[in-house]
């Protein structure tokens, strides 16, 4: 059997596939952050908390209303998006004239409140969300047995990521969005409702986080802290990629998932820090990020 640095190729392929699954979560989350940042110029610290809320919504839908996974895949992100609308309309919109840091501080506070409320009512140890029946058991990929659900995570996330990219980069709606980012006054003058567009963008961005939450519910434990532990890594991903481009954040998310997967094989002790180390290196070599433009 052939080996790469003492690890059988087959095992390595398996690990890379697993890394790709994690990369999908990073990509979905950093994509949402990038979309929001592009339009609102705000770093949404509450992103992790809303990802957690998405997971909890799907758990609640299943346990209180008997709604299955497929429906919650649509309903939970819509619910999170609705929360997003409320947040944007009642709070964020007052901050656009101020320093961008206030947006970060506000959303940080919101994240604390959300996490605290869920911890108060649902406890700290989390809730189980069983795998949907269809996804039980593995698929034989030749080099590994991949659980069906993980395969589904990869397929669904990539679809959503590329659909988002397509809408923003290739359609008329996307063109308005991009134009609104560059020059809101001008776009407004063309008769487009910019405030509405901003609200919907924020709702869409956090909806993506909610979607990632639903995807994560069966894999991870549905727990109040699930958001805060992933969001810091996603921030690092965003710094590495630079928030300038949609494709950039998708590619960086996936790429870092793969690198993290490799670290888990060769030097597992460093697997939580590797992303930060890469961030430091990127900052030294290319301060604006891999896909960012220096302003």
């Amino acid at each position: 059997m052939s080996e790469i640095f003492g690890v059988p190729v087959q095992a390595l392929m398996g690990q890379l596939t697993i890394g790709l699954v994690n990369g999908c979560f990073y990509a979905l989350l950093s994509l949402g952050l990038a979309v929001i940042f592009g339009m609102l110029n705000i770093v949404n610290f509450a992103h992790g908390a809303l990802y957690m809320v998405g997971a909890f919504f799907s758990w609640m839908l299943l346990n209180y209303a008997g709604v299955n996974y497929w429906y919650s895949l649509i309903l939970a992100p819509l619910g999170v998006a609705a929360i997003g609308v409320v947040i944007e309309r009642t709070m964020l919109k007052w901050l656009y004239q101020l320093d961008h840091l206030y947006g970060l501080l506000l959303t940080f506070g919101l994240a604390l409140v959300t996490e605290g409320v869920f911890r108060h009512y649902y406890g700290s140890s989390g809730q189980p969300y069983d795998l949907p029946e269809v996804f039980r058991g593995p698929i034989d990929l030749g080099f590994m047995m991949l659980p069906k659900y993980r395969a589904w995570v990869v397929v669904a996330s990539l679809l959503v990521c590329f659909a988002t990219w397509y809408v923003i980069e290739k359609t008329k709606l996307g063109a308005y969005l991009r134009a609104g980012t560059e020059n809101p006054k001008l776009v407004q003058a063309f008769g487009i409702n910019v405030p509405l567009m901003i609200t919907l963008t924020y709702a869409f961005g956090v909806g993506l986080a909610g979607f990632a939450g639903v995807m994560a519910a069966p894999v991870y434990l549905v727990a109040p802290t699930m958001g805060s532990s992933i969001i810091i890594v996603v921030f690092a991903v965003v710094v590495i990629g630079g928030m300038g481009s949609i494709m950039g954040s998708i590619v960086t998310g996936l790429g870092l998932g793969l690198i993290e997967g490799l670290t888990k094989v060769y030097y597992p002790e460093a697997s939580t820090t590797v992303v930060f180390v890469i961030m430091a290196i990127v900052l030294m070599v290319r301060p604006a990020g891999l896909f960012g433009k220096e302003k």
Partner: protein
Amino acid sequence: MSLHRTPAAVPRRFLREAVRRLACAAAVLPLAWAAPAQASLSDGVLKIGVLTDMSGPYSDFVGKGAVIAARMAIDDFGGRMFGKDIVLVEADHLSKADVGKNVAQRWFDVEKVDAAFELNNSSVALAVTALGRDRNRITVVTGAASSRITNEDCAPATSLHWVYDTHSLANVVGKAIVRIGGKRWFFLTADYAFGHSLERDTSNVVRAAGGTVVGGVRHPLDVGDFSSFLLQAQASKADIVALANAGTDTVNSIKSATEFGIPKKQRLVTLLLGISAVHALGLPAAQDLYMAEGWYWDTNDETRAFGRRFAALHNGRMPNAIHTGVYSSVSHYLKAVRTAGTDDTAKVMKAMHAAPVNDVFTKNGRIREDGLMQHDVYLFQVKKPAESKAPWDYLKLVETVKGEDAFQPLSQTRCPALLAKGRA
């Protein structure tokens, strides 16, 4: 509650139990008679504190439940000591050692609290244990597992450690599993002091019992996704995959293990997992898992009755070993104060050491010189969903390990105070 007892120790035990029962029944009667004539409390009132994590990561394992258990112990004792109401104070240390230490210090210095209980999370436990040594107040640790509490950082004159420590968990799991046929072990270890000591202790036990350790992987705290490490465990072809981690890490590793079908070919063993975590995982994911516990509610009539009483006060959640440990330690403390006839630390500690612990938590538990309460520990296996008949019906007993086999022998102590005494 039943009167079921092993025959050997009936007479004394029966008497003791009868006294306790009288006390329970006579909650309204002043209990001062039972106490020696010169009975007195230093500041006129007996005040005990429960300091625990009510909002942090361990709040489900301890938290409010610990306060409820302490309250139950006081009620069962009759609520009064030498004619005065026993006062119970509670505080949340937010899982921060500095907040915990600050609160305990205020309790000891200003509010005249006589003893502090629970103290979950080992940083708080160690901080408050050290403070108790300084201020000459009794501290009883139930939730924290660090074996430093009775070793390097021991305070045998003031501190007790009640439910478990890493050494006993490792010992019980290692011995019992090798005995039932788990010979080849693979460790999934949290990469910090706690995980290392758990892995080291367990490996020693496994090797001594005739098993082998075929490999292991160390993961950082809070790594989130464990599938990659579990693939390595799978590739090792070990019989046993042992999880030397805690909290969310354990729960997440079990979830991923189930997803990757590990329990089908290999057996999954956790070294530290409470029933609350089994509840969080759900039986489909947790089934067949082995775990060591000091107490389980569905053991006999007495434990069942206690469990139901507790659950009625705690939103239907059954008590875990830590909750019952708080009940047990508070009861034992109160009895000792009555026997000693005073709340003086040294005298109460002497009485606590002298009396065996006989209550719903354990039979014939014994407080050792190093402050460790030695009692029987059990190896359980989590039931399959089909075997579970009722909510919280989660575990079946595999083995009972005697206290003297479960805990670190006193001869191996690393407690400086005891070592000094030995040398003298």
